[in-house]
């Protein structure tokens, strides 16, 4: 279990460094998604399977997809569309493929362990939800305010002029 944590943490940090050093926005987004997947594995090893699932579903699955949509919409490489073909060489795929392979190997190793790799203390989703809708109920309501404000703001700001 410990080696799982340390390997996933290394993958997360390496992918994070790659995010900020890429020239191409889409490459950086792909590395960010790898980093989020590695972080989900880290959460699992810490005994937090609920936020591990949430991290993948919401962060990598919704927020990063929103980023990808906007990057694709703005078509950032439009000044060098022909150069994109030059950029699209196999070298660009080596990094994310290697990191993703490490994660897949870790996943297979964990699943093949017949339950040996469960963390020492797991905080179940039921405990999280009892706490969330118990002492932290006010925070839930405030979060819904924030999301409504974000929704209205994004709708207004996203409109075209005129």
């Amino acid at each position, binding site marked *: 279990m410990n080696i799982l944590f340390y390997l996933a*943490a290394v993958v997360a940090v390496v992918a*994070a460094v790659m*995010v900020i050093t890429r020239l191409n926005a889409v490459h950086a987004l792909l590395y960010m998604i790898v980093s*989020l997947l590695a972080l989900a594995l880290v959460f699992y090893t810490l005994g937090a399977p609920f936020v591990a699932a949430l991290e993948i579903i919401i962060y990598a699955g919704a927020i990063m997809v929103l980023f990808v949509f906007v990057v694709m919409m703005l078509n950032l490489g439009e000044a060098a569309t022909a150069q994109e073909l030059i950029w699209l060489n196999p070298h660009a795929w080596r990094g994310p493929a290697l990191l993703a392979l490490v994660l897949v190997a870790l996943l297979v190793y964990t699943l093949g362990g017949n339950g040996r790799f469960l963390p020492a203390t797991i905080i179940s989703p039921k405990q999280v939800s009892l706490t969330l809708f118990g002492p932290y109920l006010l925070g839930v309501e405030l*979060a819904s305010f924030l*999301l409504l404000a*974000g929704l209205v703001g994004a709708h207004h700001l996203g409109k075209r002029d005129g």
Partner: protein
Amino acid sequence: MAEIPMEHGLIVAGLLFATGMVGVIVRRNIFFILLSIEMMLNAAGLAFVVAGARWAQADGQVMFIFILAMAAAEVSVGLALVLQLYNRFKTVDVDAASEMRG
């Protein structure tokens, strides 16, 4: 199997946070700045989850859920602002938006 020390988890969170911070400072492309901010938020969430696991309480995960909701709202508004920036200045270079002359 031994518990993972809290310090190691916090070190990972610190490394991620520092990486995001460097990304915000160094990059000029607004997408990379937003991405680095998301990385910093993730690092803070990791710190919360590590702390919650240390004391075997659900509060760390609850804080992470709030951070998640906040990051979603912030990203939608931030990307809408990026669209406005692009429509206005025809570039994603943040240094182009310097009309207030610091």
